[in-house]
């Protein structure tokens, strides 16, 4: 048997492509990815450091930039946990029970992925803006939603809405209900069952969803741009600050702040890869 395997090793299997084809395909793929993905990433850092490290650091260490960093962190700190809790609830309801209309519910949860970010911003302007449904009430009570932090958080929650749910639903469906049923039949309460049985089973999937959700929450541009009003130091998130600096031809500043966001993206990808290597079931899922 071993001899047969050894002799097989030397020969090309029928599903193997010839070496020239492999080299050609990998070469084309590498060239394409270098042009489309690596070049833009490299350009950000080169442009940020065009005048040396000093001006780049100065652009980041500027009150408006720091305010933007702070607002971005606040926005993510609210919207990501919110969507994580929602995702857990939705996945529990969908994966652990049978009910009619399940497919429709999953489609509706995925809906924000199909909506243009600009439309996502617009819908909240139509509701909370001056001429919107609650416009007069909000003005009378001196509550600001649009052109203020609540609007930014709402728009961010909308665009990142499906991330955690769509990660957890297939995972929990795969795991079935037998472990939870066993726990409940032995007298565990619902909450105890969740913490001791379900949570350990889904924690990696949850982290994966939270990771992608966070990257999008910190990086969202279109939706936030519609509701923010671009008030420096007050309602500018990091991506909006990048836009303002770029439009003012402060390229070093724009790319310096952009480089910070690139670092966020790189950290996200490293963590994501680490999760995939540690949890082989995670590979190939995700998306968006």
């Amino acid at each position, binding site marked *: 048997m071993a001899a047969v395997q050894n002799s097989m090793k030397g020969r090309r299997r*029928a*599903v193997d492509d010839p070496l020239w084809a492999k080299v050609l*395909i*990998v070469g084309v*793929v*590498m060239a394409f*990815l270098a042009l*489309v*993905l*690596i*070049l*833009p990433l490299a*350009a*950000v850092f080169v*442009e940020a450091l065009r005048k040396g490290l000093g001006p780049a650091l100065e652009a980041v260490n500027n009150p408006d930039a720091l305010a933007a960093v702070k607002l971005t962190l606040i926005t993510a700190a609210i919207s990501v946990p919110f969507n994580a809790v929602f995702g857990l*609830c939705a996945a529990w309801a969908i994966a*652990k029970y*049978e*009910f009619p209309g399940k497919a429709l*519910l999953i*489609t*509706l949860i995925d*809906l924000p992925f*199909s*909506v*243009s*970010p*600009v*439309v996502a911003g*617009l*819908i909240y*302007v*139509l*509701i909370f803006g001056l001429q919107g449904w609650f416009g007069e009430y909000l003005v009378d009570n001196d509550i600001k939603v649009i052109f203020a932090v609540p609007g930014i958080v709402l728009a961010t929650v909308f665009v990142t*809405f499906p991330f955690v749910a769509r990660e957890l639903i297939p995972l929990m469906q795969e795991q079935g*209900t037998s472990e*939870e*049923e066993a726990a*409940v039949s*032995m007298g565990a309460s*619902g909450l105890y*069952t969740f913490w001791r049985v379900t949570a350990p089973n889904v924690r990696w999937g949850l982290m994966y969803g939270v990771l992608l959700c966070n*990257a999008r929450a910190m*990086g969202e*541009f*279109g939706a936030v*741009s*519609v509701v923010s009003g671009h008030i420096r130091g007050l309602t500018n998130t*990091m*991506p909006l600050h*990048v*836009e303002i600096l770029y439009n003012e031809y402060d390229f070093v500043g724009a*790319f310096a702040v*952009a480089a910070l966001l690139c670092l966020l*993206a790189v950290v*996200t990808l*490293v963590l994501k890869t680490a999760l995939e290597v540690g949890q082989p079931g995670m590979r*190939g*899922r995700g*998306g968006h």
Partner: protein
Amino acid sequence: MWRARTLDDDQTMTADTAVRRSSAPPPKGKRPLFRRRSAIPGFGLTMGVTLTVLSLIVLIPLSAVVLKAAHQSPADFWAVATSQRSMAAYRLTFGAAFVAAVINGVFGVLTAWALVRYDFPGKTVVNALVDLPFALPTAVAGIALATLYAPTGWVGQFLTPLGIKAAYNPVGVTIALIFIGLPFVVRTIEPVLRDAAEDVEEAAASLGANRVDTILRIVLPALAPAWLTGFAMAFARGVGEYGSVIFIAGNMPYKSEIAPLLIIIQLEQFEYARAATIAVVMLAVSFTMLLVINAIQAWARRFD
């Protein structure tokens, strides 16, 4: 009715009766609406939270834009939705998204094929990089691409002598959408390719098919549903994309102005009904794409 009763029962039942009930056979004669009643508590709570949040964050706000657009007469709606400027914007948006999705369709298959079937140095890095467009904020991609493809940029300087104007032109819009859409195609094809049985290919080969025949007639047809899904997802995302496009597009009315930008321009002029009108057209396209994607996936499941 049924749902309400399950909810109340779950809250009052002890675990024991719950399990006994769930294992009881469904009543004979008619097919039960619920395959079996669950012993696990929490349906009422989690379903309640899910429906409430979904309605408040997504469904009711989305209905606001439809109501706003419906507030005007059909003639006004039609005039704005099909004005020359709007039509030019749709043509650019859909055209660029389509071309970008086709290009991603070709290179996405090759990338997925290389990642699944071959071992090569740096594969882990390449695999991680494919998701860069998901992780990188779109505005960052936008300014980077605009700088690269500007006439004096790293890439633009080589295109200018060839007479190609990339940035501030529809070509630039397409370039940005290629960046945005790539992972959709790769990540939808990859799992299908990984699960595809190599023994079918071996069988084809042992029956005398050459490699090209095997790929054209065995591998690619099996990939078709995933490829179409990835293509449709990349197209749908491209149609709505804003951040990565506006920096490189040039934003000239009738020429390089995308539909999402038109919404923003109307909004800045306080023309809320007009903004809502274009938004409704885009929503209609998004929902159609969503239905198409679901139909493709339902069709693909028939072959499982």
